[in-house]
């Protein structure tokens, strides 16, 4: 497969089709796009994720990220360091950043049904906005903490495998 042309500037890249190859972590994503990523350090994490995230912006795709609120500013700084115009992307609707409390931990606890609905809503909304694809990246460190509902996470993740094959959007 032809690699994606990544020479375009991050802003103003040509819109892509959703079936364009997605390069990620030294490979190309196939039909299975539900990815569990383990990193030893933030530096390793962003070394792997930033080219993937940046390529999505350059291709005119949507980025939906869920982060630890304590690391929100750091996340934005890392995106900006890759040349992503975060403010413009947020304003245009291309980029949406949520804290855990506005996704996995609404009302202070994890509800798998509510979260499954949110993921579908996010992926559908990206399409409705006219984006060919949504690249969803979620930090999951909250699952290592003693949070209410966390015991349902494994069931949620496996049920996600009924939903995600209906979409082409990568979920990391």
């Amino acid at each position, binding site marked *: 497969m032809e690699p994606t042309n990544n020479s375009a500037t991050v802003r103003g890249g040509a819109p892509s089709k959703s079936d364009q190859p997605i390069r*990620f*972590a*030294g*490979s190309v*994503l196939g039909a*299975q*796009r*539900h*990815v*569990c*990523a*383990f*990193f030893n350090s933030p530096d*390793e994490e962003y*070394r*792997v994720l930033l080219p993937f995230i940046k390529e999505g912006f350059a291709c005119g795709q949507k980025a939906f990220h869920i982060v630890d609120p304590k690391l929100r500013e750091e996340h934005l700084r890392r995106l900006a360091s890759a040349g992503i115009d975060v403010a413009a992307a947020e304003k245009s609707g291309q980029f949406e950043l949520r804290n855990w409390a506005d996704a996995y931990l609404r009302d202070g606890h994890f509800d798998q049904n509510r979260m499954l609905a949110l993921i579908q809503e996010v992926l559908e909304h990206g399409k409705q906005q006219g984006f060919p694809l949504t690249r969803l990246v979620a930090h999951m460190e909250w*699952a290592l903490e003693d949070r209410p509902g966390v015991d349902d*996470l*494994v*069931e949620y*993740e*496996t*049920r*996600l*495998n*009924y939903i995600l094959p209906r979409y082409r959007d990568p979920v*990391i």
Partner: protein
Amino acid sequence: MDIMRTHPMTIIGGVLQENPFFVPPDEFLRELRERRATPNV
């Protein structure tokens, strides 16, 4: 490490690969139900 079994793809050591431990959802949900039905000994 149940969570590893719920993702068809993994990134470990910075490399994307198919996850050999992945279990399809029908099978995994059945296993979860069986675990709940079996009292701990």
